């Protein structure tokens, strides 16, 4: 083999290695997007539906004008448009992943990244994915419409602008940057300014590469200085045009509205929420600076290792950022099931929690009331008050107040929180739907019709609105509707002036235990009894039990009520329970419970609890061992 042959063979070998390098990266990229799509569409389907419920997009000119009344309004509007597709998780995930893929292709094209380096082009998509899968309970608190899609759309816009810029003559650098900053800013916010910044970095990089001083000045330094000036001046100038935002907001227009609370630790705010953003901007600026240097082939082994590291880090980064709180997932699944009146599913989901949040417990209790099995099941589920996995305060008023108040027949309070939340966070599909239902349940049809009219201007919720409209035309239908039966029956109390002080569960229990109502419905009386049991209120138990008995023909008292009768009669021997039928099996179990209690006498409740796990489906276990419940 002569020298030429050797060179050729090496070239062939290098080429096949480069091909291999390109090929596996292609497969990796394909696998990445497919897995992300599947995870979003199926594993996170309940979350996507919930995100849509926390959003609103209307086909209406006033809605458009409102959105355009703040900088980055167009971005927000388009973001809200795409968010509506999350109502059908497969469709929403497809749109999102398609845009992520488009971003990957755009990065590759704009920065001329070769196939063998293509994982570098994946990084912005990875960062934006990490940004989106980390939110958790933020979904209730973010005030920026369309936030789920805005970072992705904004980045795509920036890159598209850069791509156009690169095709233009350098003589147009200044006017393009000027126009982009001045007129792009109101539509796309900081993404327009960021694009201008990238353009000037590219200008400098190109000029340095060309070694042309004139070019460096006119394509690089002057645009860079201009960009810096524009980045300060343009938001300030537009501030005087917009009359609806403070000056500080102008410099973050287009970024999500979670604020950095300096009282919180660094990792839970900056790192968790802003780091992907920072890395995204830094990476794109670096790509701009390295422009066209990522298209080389290089040494394949070193590159293979580099690319493998990039691939592994990408997966690890996304996995690290993926919000994996099981309770949050359960809450979302329960919520979606509650809208569909799948009460058994709602209850079953609660079983998946180790220590549930109060939302899970409230949802489960509502489901059991609807199923009519609360008396025999309510205390056989995991109970407690798990801390919310979020670095900020999460209140039931934002997460489940409307659903809970509606089902407990506190219809005015349900409507009140629809309004309070819509005022603070903007109208969302969930607010509108709860408003409609609470108004229909209390026969305020004029106002219900207004909100139905708004929902009819949505793409995916107009069908729901039309179904509700039938209740307006034929109110008797509500009495047979599975979603209205419980609230209407629960709304049998006289009007009173009350406040919940923003504590939903505490208020519900307090309100239910204010005294037995004469003439109340059976389900209301049962809810009173259950509230008394939750409060462990031995003084009012017998009165509540009498309320439960009134108006019912009872053949067998539900299990938990029998358990409660035994425990409360043990505490108050003067009560005669001979007329109350108690199952032998329950009596026997109670004797076992008492014997075991004797055995572990002297231990604290915390120490005793593990020895009573086999009683965790009883009211006795709840009474003695479920303590310190905190509800917010």
């Amino acid at each position: 083999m002569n020298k030429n042959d050797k060179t050729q063979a090496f070239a062939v070998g290098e080429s096949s290695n480069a091909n291999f390098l390109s090929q596996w990266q292609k497969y990796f990229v394909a696998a990445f997007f497919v897995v992300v799509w599947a995870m979003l569409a199926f594993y996170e389907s309940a979350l996507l539906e919930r995100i849509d419920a926390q959003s609103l997009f209307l086909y209406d000119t006033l809605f458009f004008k409102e959105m355009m009344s703040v900088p980055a309004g167009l971005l927000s509007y388009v973001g809200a448009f795409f968010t509506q597709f999350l109502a059908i998780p497969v469709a929403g995930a497809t749109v999102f992943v398609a845009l992520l893929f488009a971003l990957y292709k755009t990065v590759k094209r704009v920065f001329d990244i070769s196939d063998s380096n293509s994982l570098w082009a994946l990084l912005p998509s990875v960062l934006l994915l990490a940004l989106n899968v980390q939110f958790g309970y933020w979904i209730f608190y973010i005030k920026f419409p369309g936030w789920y899609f805005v970072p992705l759309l904004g980045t795509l816009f920036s890159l598209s602008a850069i791509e156009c810029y690169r095709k233009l003559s350098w003589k147009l650098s200044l006017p393009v940057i000027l126009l982009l900053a001045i007129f792009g800013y109101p539509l796309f916010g900081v993404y327009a300014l960021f694009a201008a910044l990238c353009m000037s970095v590219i200008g400098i990089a190109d000029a340095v590469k060309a070694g042309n001083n004139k070019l460096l000045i006119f394509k690089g330094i002057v645009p860079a200085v201009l960009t810096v000036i524009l980045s300060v001046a343009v938001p300030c100038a537009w501030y005087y045009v917009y009359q609806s935002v403070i000056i500080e907001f102008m410099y973050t227009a287009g970024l999500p509205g979670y604020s950095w609370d300096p009282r919180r630790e660094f990792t839970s705010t900056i790192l968790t929420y802003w780091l992907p953003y920072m890395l995204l901007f830094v990476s794109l600026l670096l790509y701009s600076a390295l422009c066209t240097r990522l298209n080389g082939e290089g040494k394949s082994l070193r590159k293979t290792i580099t690319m493998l590291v990039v691939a592994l880090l990408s997966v690890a980064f996304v996995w690290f950022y993926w919000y994996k709180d099981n309770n949050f997932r359960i809450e979302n699944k329960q919520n979606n099931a509650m809208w569909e009146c799948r009460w058994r599913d709602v209850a079953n989901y609660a079983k998946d929690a180790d220590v549930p949040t109060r939302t899970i417990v409230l949802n489960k209790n509502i489901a059991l009331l609807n199923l009519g099995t609360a008396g025999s099941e309510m205390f056989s589920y995991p109970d407690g008050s798990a801390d919310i996995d979020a670095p900020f305060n999460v209140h039931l008023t934002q997460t489940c107040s409307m659903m809970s108040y509606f089902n407990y027949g506190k219809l005015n309070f349900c409507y009140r929180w629809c309004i309070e939340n819509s005022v603070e966070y903007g109208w969302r599909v969930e607010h509108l739907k709860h408003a409609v239902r609470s108004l229909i349940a209390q026969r305020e049809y004029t106002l219900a019709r207004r909100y139905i009219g708004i929902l009819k201007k949505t793409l995916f919720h107009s069908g729901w609105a039309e179904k509700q409209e039938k209740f307006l035309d034929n109110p008797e239908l509500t009495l047979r509707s599975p979603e209205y039966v419980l609230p209407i029956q629960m709304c049998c109390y006289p009007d009173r002036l009350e406040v919940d002080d923003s504590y939903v569960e505490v208020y519900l229990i307090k309100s239910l235990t204010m005294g037995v109502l004469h003439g109340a419905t059976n389900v209301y009386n049962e809810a009173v009894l259950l509230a008394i049991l939750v409060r462990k209120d031995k003084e009012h138990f017998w009165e509540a039990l009498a309320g439960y008995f009134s108006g019912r023909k009872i053949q067998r008292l539900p299990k938990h009520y029998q358990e409660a009768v035994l425990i409360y009669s043990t505490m108050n021997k003067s009560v005669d329970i001979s007329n109350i039928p108690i199952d032998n099996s329950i009596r026997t179990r109670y004797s076992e419970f008492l014997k075991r209690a004797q055995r572990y006498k002297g231990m604290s409740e915390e120490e005793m609890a593990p020895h009573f796990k086999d009683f965790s489906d009883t009211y006795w276990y709840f009474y003695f061992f479920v303590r310190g419940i905190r509800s917010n």
Partner: protein
Amino acid sequence: MKNRILNIFAPLLLFCVVACSPVAPEKWSESASLPQIYPDYVNVTIPCNIAPLTFEINDDADEYVTRLSSGAVELLVGGKIVAPSIKKWRELLRAATGNEIKVEVFLCRNDRWTLTSPFSYFVSSDSIDPYISYRLIPPSYVGYEKLTINQRSLADYEEKVIYNNMLSSIEDKAQCINCHAYKNYRTDNMQFHLRQTNGGTIFVNDGKIVKLNMATDSTLSPGVYPAFNPVYDVVAYSVNKTGQIFHTRNRNKVEVQDVASDVIIYNPAANVVTNVSDSPDDLEVFPYWSPDGKKLYYGSAHFVITDTARTMMQEEIMRYRDIKYDILCRSWNPETFEFSAPDTVFAASRMGKSATFPRISPDGRYLLVALGEYGCFHVWHKDADLCLVDLQTGYYRLLDKANSPDAESYHSWSSNSRWILFSSRRDDTNYTRLYIAHVDPDGMDSKAFLLPQKSPEFYSMFDRSYNVPEFMVEPVRIAPHEFAEYAKGDAVNVKYSTNGM
């Protein structure tokens, strides 16, 4: 070349114009029923300088043509949305002033035209003030976010922001704005309040802005509901400790109640406030001056705790229906700043009612109040109606034509005393909208009409309530950002004085 283009496009253009211009049908049958239109402008009385009344026809039909005519002047509008051009509308108004505009709605179904029963707009020769202002606020209870005070030209649809709280609000440092008021319908003396973060009163005194801190140790709270004296340089305020509590079932939803309230006056020249009425057993609210500036009217409810174990709030929760306001009046001497003892002008409580928000017509003849069953915040009371008291005779009457079954409240008089502007929840029971009604010199009202908008569909989507509407004869000229600079700045402390000077 140019001519060739013109030759091609001119007929096309002409065709488009002709094709798009509505044509009244030549033959039709007549229907005895009125067309279903929103807003309901059937047989309303309108001022001679109002913007076009736009409406939507809700009858089902294939085609719609509406003819508005007065004498020889005629205006045709095609389509379901009837939105006449401002220019043509003004011609029509000129022709119809002191007379009426006839409105004929033609509906075409299956190629057959029907004329629904015609109705009229009665065009009063009494003009209306050219501007109004109002606060736009979601119909919320406790929370707030975006609030604006806006001004609107009544001759057209132009609306501008006077102030937007988002110019000085950020998340946990939010700022609420409320209670805008003007002196004599002019804007070089005006005010509005800022609450919570950087709270204070933005006070414009002869065009000069100052931010005031009106809290003193001798008054219950900073000034709340304001009333500029139309003649002298003083402003009356009520000072209130207010709470909200919610109905569990009642459709009124919420009760906004004062647990304590008094009336004070502010003298800008001396920068002092003085108590006018601070009886602990009386709740005083909503002051308003007579046109000569020498009488101060206000609402007052005598309410005492019957069980000393209770707090005032608890007592009010128990007996909220017993809180009944009368309208009282005190004479004021502008030289000595002394007030007389109060006289009862309108004893609503004797009728088992509660009257608040006294507003005197600028001609001094009428007192207009919001009258409800109980309480002071009638905007949340569905039974609240406008009631006119003739100050010459003492007779009162509900404004039957202007009122509705839902809440009417927050009214104001035009500077010529012939128009009233008020908020009403009649449209959907929740969002207050602005209605305008004519009141003739004899105190007879006419059917109220909804503040017209460029698109009649506007209200069905607009998610804010109109609050505290006020007439103005000129617009506010200070820019929102100028107010914002003061809103973010420090406030000048107001002092307390026992003699007002």
